[in-house]
């Protein structure tokens, strides 16, 4: 169902297919503008990366989506309708600053949080049981939260975020504080939730996570949205027409036509260089030129990583 949307959703005309849209959101605090005309669209069933340096305004936006605060101007649509109180039950939120009641039993706490999200005690109980089996944490039910390790608390909090099977799950730095094994466990859960039809918003600094999981991204910088769309398309935009080549021998005279950079020896006898094509020259031409000079062992296009995209996009914006 989201298949149609994949290709068009970055345009603002795909209303029914977006689980969430923000339109021209402005939010001002005492002496600074936290969000300046921010419009994003989050396609149903996607994993959406909300990126940006610290203090860019991500948390402000997330709080508006969670109805913790309201925008000064602009509006938010949830599933095509203006965001309202009845949507609260359809959203699950894991804030960056994790927190649980320290002196409350794990089981009681999860039951309480689930009921706040509109589940009945019975429903919550059933769902909790299956999560406790899934995560193999049955013995934790009667423990106080303060008796759990930090990683264990994170697990409990993750369960509380997704227990009510929300349509939209907002995860702020979901992997921080997890060891690699548990991080994988959580990642698999996130993918499974998406499989079941949930949409996930990721707010993170960890570009490898974005690389791996996100279909769409939006980049917020200095309170403004500077970039958004499908991840692959954005990477495409940030390509520099640069190719890498691994070879035996010495590149000679190539620098007259191409920009050769980052030449280094990767193992005895083999070098690797990045070569940028000038306009009007394609990769076949470069390959031909290379073959004449050296023995090519590997050749390919340098696709920018999300890390590159992030750094470049942020640095290209001039200081306000």
């Amino acid at each position, binding site marked *: 169902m989201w298949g149609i949307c994949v290709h068009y959703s970055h345009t603002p005309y795909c209303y029914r297919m977006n689980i969430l849209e923000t339109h021209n959101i402005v939010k001002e605090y*005492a002496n600074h503008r936290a969000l300046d005309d921010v419009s994003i669209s989050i396609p149903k069933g996607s994993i959406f990366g909300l990126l940006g340096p610290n203090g860019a305004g991500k948390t402000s936006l997330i*709080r508006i989506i*969670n*109805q*913790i*605060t*309201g*925008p*000064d101007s602009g509006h938010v649509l949830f599933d095509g309708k203006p965001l309202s109180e009845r949507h*609260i039950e359809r*959203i699950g*939120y894991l*804030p960056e*600053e*994790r*927190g*649980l*009641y*320290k*002196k*409350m039993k794990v089981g009681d706490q999860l039951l*309480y*949080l689930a*009921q*706040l*999200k509109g589940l009945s005690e019975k429903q919550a109980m059933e769902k909790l049981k299956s999560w406790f089996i899934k995560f193999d944490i049955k013995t934790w039910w009667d423990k106080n939260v303060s008796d759990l390790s930090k990683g264990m608390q994170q697990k409990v*909090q993750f369960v*509380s975020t997704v227990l009510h099977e929300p349509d939209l799950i907002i995860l702020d730095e979901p992997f921080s504080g997890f060891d690699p094994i548990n991080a994988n466990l959580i990642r698999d859960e996130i993918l499974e939730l998406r499989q079941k039809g949930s949409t996930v918003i990721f707010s993170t600094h960890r570009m490898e996570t974005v690389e791996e999981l996100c279909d769409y991204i939006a980049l917020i910088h200095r309170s403004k949205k500077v970039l958004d769309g499908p991840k692959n398309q954005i990477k495409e935009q940030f390509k520099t027409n640069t190719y890498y080549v691994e070879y035996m021998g010495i590149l000679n005279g190539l620098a007259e036509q191409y920009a050769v950079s980052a030449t280094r020896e990767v193992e005895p006898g083999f070098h690797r260089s990045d070569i940028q094509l000038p306009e009007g020259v394609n990769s076949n031409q470069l390959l031909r030129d290379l073959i004449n000079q050296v023995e090519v062992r590997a050749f390919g296009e340098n696709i920018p990583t999300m890390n590159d995209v992030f750094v470049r996009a942020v640095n290209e914006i001039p200081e306000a």
Partner: protein
Amino acid sequence: MKNILLVLKREYMVRVKKKSFLIMTFLAPLLFVGFYATVIWVAVGSVESKTVQVLDQSGLFTGQFQNSKTINFQYLTMSLDSAKASLKATKSTALVYIPEDVMENPKTVKIYAPKNVSLELQSDIEKTIEKQIESIKLTEAGITRRVLEDSRINVDSQTISLSEEGEKSSSSGAATAIGGICAFLIYISVFVYGTQVMRGVTEEKTSRIVEVIISSVKPFQLMMGKIIGVALVGLTQFVLWILLTVALTSVAGAMLGDQLPKDPQQIEQQFNDLNKNMPASALKANSGPANPVSEVLSAVNSLNLPLIISCFLFYFLGGYLLYSALFGAVGAAVDNDADTQQFMLPITLPIIFSFVFAQFVLRDPDGSLAFWTSIIPFTSPIIMMVRIPFGVPGWQIALSMVLLVLGFMGTTWLAARIYRIGILMYGKKVSYKELAKWVFYRG
């Protein structure tokens, strides 16, 4: 509404299940009853009888020291030195030495004792000696003790309250006691439970769970749920205290049963005995034939108890709601308990002031200080409770109640404005100016 109930239920259950709640709830009545049981035990039963030797060289006091239940006087006729020796040998409590010239030099009376004698015993002995010297001097002046006692008239007035229901015997003593107790209870509970609300808010803030919670419920609902939940904890504690105290008292009463006198006559006797042991009230004890217990009961009955109890509940809740909202706002404005001090003063001052005013109002329950402080919402919960046992015109009660309701609606509104911003503010020392700004923030 459903969310407020959920929050309320959690706040209530968490507190009621706490060990400190259980301990306080069960220990306080035990201590209370235990204290009274001990007092009664000591007063009624187990006082050791003492022997006091009297060496009266003046010969004026023969037969003047009357043996009581606890003190047995022995008259000696020997020299002071051998009396001192016999004091040690007989293990008596004390030796009273009255020299021959006691009429001229009353300060020469001496009490010898191996251990310090109690103040009570000392003043008893002094009283007896003074009285005898007084009698002798009076006789010399031609006045008998009888004439003197006839001249002393003890006035114990009865106050009659004139109301629409007609004349009714009332007691300003009982009114003072009831008013004072009610005011004190409200004073303590506003502090204790208000602080609990504040702690609860800072706990949610420092543990950072608040962001999760307010993504599900409105800050106002969270605040109200907490305030009402804590109020119910307070009411539960009151009710349990009353029930347990009553239960324990009857148990203790049954256990002390054989020690306690059965019929009123005996009770009166007991009270007089008790009073006799207390020199200050010795004279008063002979005053009236009325049974003091039934006197107290009838005095309490003369008060409008249903009105007092319903007003107590109203002013307890009203006062608590008015202040706990403010306590909650303070909890939201700071990062941890240690920082609360700077904002506490404006909240605690009116409470402490009303408690101080209460002492004056007790003396003059219808003065203008009493009137105004019982109308103004910040002081009315305590002051009005002081006044009510004395009788307050209906319109004043109504006005004070309406203003109190408006008052707590006002503070709740104000607190909610500060609360919604404060709970998400971290790492910032907040000033009053800042708080004022928060009140007017939108969204």
